[in-house]
Structure formats: structure tokens, C-alpha cells
């Protein structure tokens, strides 16, 4: 009897399934719509509010005191590019090395310890990272607010992101390729450098982009390290401007003109991150066809 029921469910069961099916489809569609809608809303809001503030001078000029016409975020753009680049140079090799350690060298207990540490660092509030670098570098070793201290803080935030993402993509490299390379008589490090990393290079580039994007938008750790600067500076040992700091400054002011500038700077920050992401992806070498 039950076999017959399975073979041909009654109309009651069929209707029940149809209802559940429809309800689930509606719920899932709604959730997706909210997620996508929120993204579009934020982007749209940014563009609508930010676009009016943009003109050539906004990109090239330094901030001016309130009441003075014009003024822009030139130093902040330069500062964000410099600090993110230095942070990337520090963090990307370390993160990749940690991922190689975990997946290729010591997959066992040591790998688990490294992975757990990376998770802990990733879970640190970014302001705590800022406080640490502030006491260690700004108050300690260097004795001053500086671009390099800001880069160090961002690097600490980037390392676990690079490490975890790279680890995931290295795991996707088929074991059969490692075996093939080892069977050719290759030492382990050459297997990693010549076979595993090149196979995963697109994914590794994505890891770097994710980390850079995240770091470029950080504000809290920079407040305590890079400090901000109203003037153009490329000196790593001096305070430097950064877009998030500039946005914070403009947005926290009571002036409508500065609020508009905060929107403009936000739009530029998002655009800078997008441009860097696309550039890095395009730069990642292609597989021969």
C-alpha cells in the first residue's frame, strides 16, 4: 500500500508539495532581491550623492578650509594608493607563504595551529589592530604617526584574508598534479613554485584583490597610525592622507558642502577599489589555449 503511495502520491500530498515549493521559491527570491537590492541601493545612493561633488579639481587639489571654494581629495587618493600598496607588498607574500605552509608543508597539527591563528587575527576588531600598531610603532619603535605604521596596520588585517583565501584555492589544485611533479623527481619547493602556485594563480590574484579591497576601506586602524594629512606627502615616515580618513573628516563636519565632498570621496574610494581589482585580474596571466 505504501509502495503505491510512493508511486503515485495522492492529490493532497501533491498539492502540499506544490504549496511548499511555491513558498520556498518566493522566500528565496525575496532574500536574493533584498541582497541585490541593497547593493544597488548603496551604489545608486553613492552615485547620486557623490557625482555632483566630482570635478577635475576634486581629484587633484588638496583639501581647503571651510568656506574656501573648491578643494579636493588629491592627497587622500595618493595616500590610499601608497599605504595600500605598501601593505600589500608586506602582507601578500606573508599570506601566500602561510597558505603554502598550511596546505603543502605541514597539513597536520602545525597547519591547524597556523590556520587557527589566522582566524583569530581575522576576528580582531580593526581598531584593536590600530591600537596595537599605535603602541608598538607609533609610540614605540618609530615614535611618530607615519604612513608605514598605517601600512603595517593594514598588512595585519590583510594577512589572514590572503592566507585563508589562498589556502582555499591551493586546496583546489588537484593532488594528481602534485603527484605528477613529485614523480618527475622534483623537490617539494619546486613543485609548489612551478606547479601548484601557477595552477592556482588566478585564485591567488583574487585573494590579493579581496585583501587589498578590504584594507583600502579600513578607517579605524589608520586613525591611530597614518593619522591623515591635509597636504600631499609620499614620505613613508610622515603622516599621510587616506580616503577613508578624509571621508570621516568631511562626513563628521557640520557643513553641507563637506558632506557632499564626503559622498564624492566615498564614490572615488569605491571606484579606486574597483579599478585596482580589475587591473589585478587582467594582470593575472592566462592559461595557454
Amino acid at each position, binding site marked *: 500500500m505504501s509502495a503505491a503511495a510512493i508511486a503515485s502520491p495522492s492529490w493532497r500530498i501533491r498539492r502540499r508539495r506544490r504549496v511548499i515549493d511555491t513558498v520556498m521559491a518566493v522566500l528565496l527570491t525575496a532574500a536574493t532581491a533584498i541582497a541585490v537590492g541593497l547593493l544597488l541601493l548603496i551604489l545608486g545612493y553613492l552615485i547620486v550623492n557623490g557625482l555632483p561633488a566630482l570635478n577635475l579639481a576634486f581629484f587633484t587639489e588638496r583639501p581647503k578650509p571651510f568656506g574656501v571654494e573648491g578643494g579636493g581629495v588629491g592627497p587622500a587618493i595618493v595616500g590610499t594608493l601608497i599605504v595600500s600598496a605598501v601593505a600589500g607588498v608586506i602582507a601578500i607574500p606573508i599570506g601566500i607563504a602561510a597558505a603554502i605552509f598550511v596546505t603543502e608543508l605541514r*597539513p597536520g597539527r602545525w597547519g591547524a595551529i597556523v590556520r587557527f591563528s589566522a582566524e583569530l587575527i581575522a576576528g580582531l576588531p580593526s581598531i584593536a589592530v590600530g591600537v596595537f600598531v599605535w603602541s608598538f610603532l607609533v609610540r614605540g619603535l618609530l615614535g611618530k604617526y607615519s604612513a608605514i605604521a598605517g601600512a603595517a596596520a593594514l598588512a595585519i588585517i590583510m594577512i589572514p584574508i590572503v592566507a585563508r583565501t589562498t589556502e582555499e584555492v591551493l586546496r583546489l589544485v588537484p593532488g*594528481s*598534479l602534485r*603527484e605528477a611533479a613529485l614523480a618527475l623527481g622534483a623537490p617539494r619547493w619546486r613543485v609548489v613554485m612551478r606547479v601548484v602556485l601557477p595552477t592556482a594563480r588566478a585564485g591567488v590574484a583574487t585573494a590579493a584583490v579581496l585583501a587589498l579591497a578590504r584594507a583600502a576601506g579600513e578607517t579605524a586602524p589608520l586613525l591611530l597610525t597614518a593619522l591623515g594629512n591635509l597636504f600631499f606627502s609620499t614620505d613613508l615616515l610622515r603622516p599621510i592622507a587616506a580616503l577613508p580618513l578624509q571621508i570621516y573628516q568631511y562626513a563628521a563636519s557640520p557643513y553641507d558642502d563637506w558632506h557632499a565632498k564626503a559622498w564624492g570621496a566615498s564614490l572615488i574610494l569605491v571606484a579606486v577599489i574597483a579599478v585596482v581589482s580589475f587591473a589585478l585580474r587582467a594582470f593575472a596571466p592566462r*592559461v*595557454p*589555449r
Partner: protein
Amino acid sequence: MTMTVTRPTIPTQQPTVSSEARSAPPPAIRTERLNAWYGTTHAVGDVTLEIPGRSVTAIIGPSGCGKSTLLRCFNRMHEITPGARVGGQVFLGSEDIYWQGTDAVEVRGRVGMVFQRPNPFPMMSVYENVAAGPRLRGWKRTRGEMDEMVERNLRRAALWDEVKDKLRRSGAALSGGQQQRLCIARALATDPAILLMDEPASALDPIATYKIEELVRELADELTIVIVTHNMQQASRVSARTAFMLAGEDGVGRLIEYGNTDELFTTPRDERTEAYITGRFG
């Protein structure tokens, strides 16, 4: 007191530009009470056998009989699996490759291996795949030497005519059978004296399989080939000698019978061999 450790040596075969220049016969393989484990699982038990040089030896047996594991003990690939262990001895020529001072990486360089699924490096071109072995081992070669080496080994693998116009294309763009012959060319490029093949045709169609078998017979003139297969017809077609393995009640794979292929398939001495080759199990 100084400890001097002497190790039995055979003249290490230098990578030669031309394989024809090699005159000494390739070393055969000899195992002495070889055992292999994966963690606590005993996969291969007490295998003692001698594999003659410049011939094809097949290892047959049902799934899980330890034949692939045995093969992977011949070039120390077994131990790359975490927790895997080997006991006993494997001699290449007169050298025990499990002697404590032996470098596993160096051993693998002298023994080529072809796997069940074709595994060309997907981010490398056909050319780079063949050049991969020498490059991965840090050999210095001029552009001209490398070109010559790539062509010669693609010819040895009977692939040159099919790929000579697409050397810059990805190795992964070839057909399955071509990919497997590319893997053979890649393994040959480091001039190994021994070639281990782990079910090299089991993922291929009959025509591609035929080409691989033909190639195996040709290569046996210059190399010692050990081929694992679950295909008994294949074993009888390509090999001079055949080893039959079977896992006992305890799950440990053992060597049941080993002898000339024609004798093993026509007049098996062990009733389990007869049962297997007549298709009563496996």
C-alpha cells in the same frame, strides 16, 4: 669516533642528451619482503619478486589487492601519502632505495611514472609539459637542446606527428589518449631507466588504449616497464611476465603467483590465479 656510512652504489645515471648513448643495461627491480601500510591498514604483505630489465612486467589482480601500492613503492611515491609506511627492501640494480641515506627525490628522478588518469599540467603548453621534468629538476639546457629533447621524447611517445603544430597549445586541450601519451613523453624526458604505469589505459577508449599498448611494447626495447592493470587481456598482450596479487581474508595484498605471462595465463600453478583469470571473481 667517527661514523662512516658507506652505501651500496650503482653508477648514477647521468642525464644524457641522447638516450641512445646509454650502453649499460637498465637496472632491474628486486623486492625483499616488501610491506606497505596506510596508517594502520596493511596494504601489501611480504612481496618478494625480481623484475628483469628491458621487458614489460604486468601486475594484475582485483581492486584493492595492493597492486598500485606495490607499484608506488618502486619509486618511493607511496610515502607521500600522510601516514604511509614501507617495510622491507626494494633494490634498483644493487641499490636499496629504502636505505636510510637514500634521497627519495633522487630515486623518483630515475624512475618515471604514468598515472591512471592523464594529468598533464593544465597551465603548461604541450612543449612545457615535456620540458617540465628537466626544468623541475633544475637542469640547465640551452633553447636548442630543449627543443631537441622535447621533439625526441614526443616522438618516443608516438605523439610528435599529432602535436608538432600545436606545441604552444595547452596540454589539457588534447584528447584523452593524446594527454596520456603526453604524460608518457613527460616521464621519458628525464631519461628514466624504469617506467612505472598505473593502469595507464583504464580511462581511455579502445583505440587510444591500443596506441598506448603498442607504445609500451616499443619502449620495452630500451626501458624496464612495470604496468599495473585490471585488464587481463592487456596484460597478456603487452607483458613478458605477469604478477598476480590478491588480498587475503585479512585484507593484506600478497603476491600469489609470478611467472612468464603465457604460462601464467595458460597453466596457472595456483588455483586462485586460475579462478581469477577464468573470470570466476574479480
